[in-house]
């Protein structure tokens, strides 16, 4: 039997086969392994790790196979054992092209739009980032060829995450303040947004908060984890999801068609997104959104966010970090008064 990587957080009991099976099949059991080509799948199958600490699996052409766990990176050799980068299994171009073929079910043409945007969404909301050589047409990315990297980002459902934040994010009448969640990548923005959507949609009796109609524009297919029309995540009983639609178009479509009380979108950043948010406010809905920035100052440095912040569109700002692991809440700011409502 080859050597196995064992995360020290979870100790293996040799005499307990059921437990060993649970650990050993941790990746296979979640249906992740089937997306890799045979060579990489065989390596990953031999790795024992606790699913909860797995964040990313990175495949880069001619580079070592890398697994990113909470707190550390692990390089794997062909036997699935943790080794130094120089001894690790080198990912080949064939590994990448065969894996991409599996990811698209041999239907690259059906994933043209996703590849153009640089990522694919898998069942369960897992996301695969893609890098390669961009093919441009009239200055616009047409597609990616000669794929050089795939990054499997493992999605996790964190039930109840953000419950302690809700009292700061809703008025005494139960209306959601226009809220922006910011953090650096991999700090739990999307997970928090997903959790808040479910809490607001289902209602929280202990906070006396009734369920509200939530409209989600899931441009990147990451919030609901839609796979061919079936959501991978539970976003609550009063949530309508518009999947794969650009935010700017989707927000007005949802408001017209589904009359939501809250509109939730992920990763604001484009000028047209900012315009759509401003339009949404005029129709009386609350806006819940996320953006890439590790602080308010950094958010202000992005022109589209700066416009929204200066115009006083958002009333609450939630800042996340990875200081104590993904999802560490650094603070909640009242943007109308500039006061810190919750901070470390």
């Amino acid at each position: 039997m080859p050597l196995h990587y064992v995360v020290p957080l979870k100790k293996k009991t040799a005499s307990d086969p059921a437990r060993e099976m649970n650990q050993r099949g941790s990746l296979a059991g979640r249906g992740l392994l089937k997306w890799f080509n045979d060579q990489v799948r065989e390596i990953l199958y031999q790795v024992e790790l606790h699913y909860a600490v797995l964040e990313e699996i990175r495949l880069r052409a001619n580079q070592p196979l890398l697994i990113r766990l909470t707190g550390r990176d692990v390089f794997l050799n062909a036997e699935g054992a943790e080794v130094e980068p120089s001894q690790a299994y080198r990912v080949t171009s064939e590994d990448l092209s065969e894996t991409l073929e599996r990811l698209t079910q041999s239907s690259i043409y059906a994933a043209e739009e996703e590849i153009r945007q640089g990522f694919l969404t898998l069942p369960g909301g897992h996301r695969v980032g893609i890098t390669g050589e961009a093919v441009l047409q009239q200055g616009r990315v047409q597609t990616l060829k000669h794929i050089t990297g795939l990054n499997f980002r493992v999605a996790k459902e964190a039930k109840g995450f953000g419950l302690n934040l809700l009292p700061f994010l809703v008025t005494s009448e139960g209306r959601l303040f226009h809220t922006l969640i910011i953090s650096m990548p991999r700090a739990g923005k999307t997970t928090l947004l997903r959790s808040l959507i479910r809490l607001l949609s289902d209602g929280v009796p202990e906070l006396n908060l009734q369920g509200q109609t939530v409209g989600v524009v899931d441009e990147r297919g990451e919030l609901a984890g839609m796979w061919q029309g079936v959501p991978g995540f539970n976003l609550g009983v009063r949530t309508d999801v518009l999947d794969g639609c650009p935010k700017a178009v989707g927000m007005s479509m949802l408001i017209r068609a589904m009359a939501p009380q809250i509109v939730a979108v992920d990763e604001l950043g484009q000028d047209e997104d900012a315009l759509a948010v401003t339009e949404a406010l005029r129709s009386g809905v609350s806006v819940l959104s996320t953006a890439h920035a590790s602080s308010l100052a950094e958010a202000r440095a992005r022109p589209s966010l700066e416009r929204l912040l200066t115009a006083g569109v958002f009333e609450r700002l939630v800042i996340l970090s990875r200081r104590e692991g993904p999802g560490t809440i650094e603070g909640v700011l009242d943007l109308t008064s500039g006061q810190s409502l919750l901070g470390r």
Partner: protein
Amino acid sequence: MLMIGSLGLIIACGGIGLWLADRARRRPGELRACLTALSLLDTEIYWGSTPLPEACAGIAARIGVPWQGFFEEIQGRIEGGEGAWSAWKATVANQTGNFCLKPEDWLVVLDVGKGLGRSDRQEQHKQLELVQKHLGQLREQAASWAERQAKMWSYLGFLVGFAVVIFLI
């Protein structure tokens, strides 16, 4: 007894001839069904951007045997993790016995699998159009060929039966 034996021999040879005639007649029909299936596949890919397993399932639901089984097998193989080309190749090898097509027909059918699903919609459309053109030509030739072959085997079976009986008597 001799009469019964002779009659049995003539019927057996005639039956084989009729079976071969029927196989020859089925070839144009199978090529026509293949063209329909490829046209559906083209539509699913070009207009619907439908992933291959789903497209194959749709075609299998709308087309009769033996192509139904062919597309069901491809769907299963791709869903099981096989690449499109390898799934197509293996299915062709596995399903040949269920068809009455000639080796030159299979060569064109095999061409469909090369590059299937590995490029954008435009490219897939062009490739499928080209294969459909080739198959169309084969079908036209197959129609007159099948008529000739069917007629020949229908008579030849019984004639061979008679010849053997005369020879034995």
